[in-house]
């Protein structure tokens, strides 16, 4: 479980995230929605501390990940990032073979001693995203040769391979063709049995289809959050109503 408490994020002198308080439950899909520029990506990047790579950023508040403050001074950032996987908007295969892409994180985290175990694990994760059969015989070829949709599934397999508990997805299907998008979306639904998934999406239809929980953000604030059914069908806040109405019509 991730509990965000009084989170404030400043970049340079801009107040990007304003007093964010929300709990992201386990083994469910939480969709973050909101207009462009409201801070959705920033929130995701704060969760796995990728925000650290941004210049002149200041973080306040606490993010309790399984009971430990990930913003604390003693937080192990690399371990945190292993635990919270990220799938980005544009698939971004590493400059190496398909196999090495998936094996990369395992090698970094020294997960296996025996080569045989590593190979088995890599194949397992490629199978989980439905790639293993598609790429038969090409596992040692450069990942860049895959189609965009396949690349995105490879990125997902790569994230799964380091055995995270959470998966962040930032518009992970928006750069894909409709069929690939559907495949990846279905994968997320399947994966929520084992992982807690937090995804940003611009397609409300998608959120409607797969979200268990919804967080609506506006100008850096969380306006409303709760079970999907409630937020979509009985929105409490006027802004949420407007946003849903505008986007649905």
């Amino acid at each position, binding site marked *: 479980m991730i509990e965000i408490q009084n989170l404030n994020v400043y970049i340079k002198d801009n107040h990007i995230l304003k007093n964010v308080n929300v709990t992201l439950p386990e083994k469910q899909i939480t969709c973050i929605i909101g207009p462009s520029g409201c801070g959705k990506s920033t929130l995701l990047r704060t969760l796995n501390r990728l925000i650290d790579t941004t210049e002149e950023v200041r973080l306040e508040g606490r993010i309790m990940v399984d009971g430990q403050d990930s913003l604390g001074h003693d937080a192990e950032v690399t371990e945190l990032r292993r635990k919270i996987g*990220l799938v*980005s908007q544009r698939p971004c295969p*590493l*400059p190496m073979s398909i196999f090495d892409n998936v094996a990369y994180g395992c090698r970094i985290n020294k997960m296996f001693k025996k080569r045989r175990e590593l190979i088995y694990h890599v194949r397992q994760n490629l199978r989980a995203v439905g790639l293993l059969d598609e790429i038969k015989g090409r596992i040692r070829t450069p990942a860049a040769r895959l189609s965009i949709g396949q690349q995105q599934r490879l990125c997902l397999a790569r994230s799964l391979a380091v055995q995270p508990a959470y998966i962040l997805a930032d518009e992970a299907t928006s750069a894909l063709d409709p069929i690939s998008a559907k495949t990846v979306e279905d994968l997320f639904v399947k994966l929520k049995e084992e992982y807690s998934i937090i995804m940003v999406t611009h397609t409300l239809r998608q959120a409607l289809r797969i979200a268990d929980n919804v967080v609506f953000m506006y100008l850096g604030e969380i306006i409303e959050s709760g079970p999907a059914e409630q937020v979509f069908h009985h929105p409490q806040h006027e802004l949420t109503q407007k946003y849903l109405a505008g986007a649905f019509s």
Partner: protein
Amino acid sequence: MLVLTLFSVLFVAVMFVGLYLKSAPVLEGKSVWTLLTASEWRPMKGEFGFFPFITGTLWATMVAILLALPVSLLTAIYLTEYAKPVVKKFVFPALDILAGLPSVIYGVWGVLVIVPWISQRVAPHFVEFSTGYTVMAAGIVLGVMVIPLLVSLFIEIFSSVPKELREASLSLGATRWQTTRRVVLRQTLPGIMASTVLAISRAMGETIAVLMVCGCVIGVPHGLLDACYPLPALIANNYGEMLSMPLYESALMFAALILFVVVLIFNLLSRMVLYRIEKKNA
């Protein structure tokens, strides 16, 4: 565009032919192989052995690159992957200035600082006496000269690596150094090699700075503390006086031809390696 490309290719060919014709007289007397491997250099008697100059060139260049490559790589990595923007703001202009300094300045610096340092501090540990005008001095001066060039090239190459790629690696729990080593360096390997070849070509062709510190003693250098006499220095030093001896002029032209061919071979080799790497990755 095509015309211009053809023109530049043609230009290289014309230069080659020109140098070849000019060096024909010296080639008439002896075979190319003899000229390249002989060590005797007596212009008066018509004996021209280029081996000392070729080895001198290779030695100085090798020392320079061995020195410059790690320093430049680490500097560029630090500046692109670790340094705060403030640091970059001061270092980048400084690099540009260093890269633009005339080579004679580096030569003067070598004579005033490096040569005495070698002669007084380094050499006494190994040999009885050294003037300091050595392979080592030439290598250091050349190395320092190509560092700004290499650093600028490397920075440009590393900056071209998309941010998302680094973030993909970091997201899997990699440290910054692991990301640099396994992703950034891997992605940019072809560029790093191409830049290195460029630096090697620069170092091989550099004349004035080397001439000032290499010692200009004809002989095959056997170590860092021997003097050397690279090809460009040979040409520059003797170009005026050789006019009286036709064979001498021809010999110097042949020296230029050797330099030309060596640099060309280097570039072609690197092209081939680059092509291989790119084909493997794409």
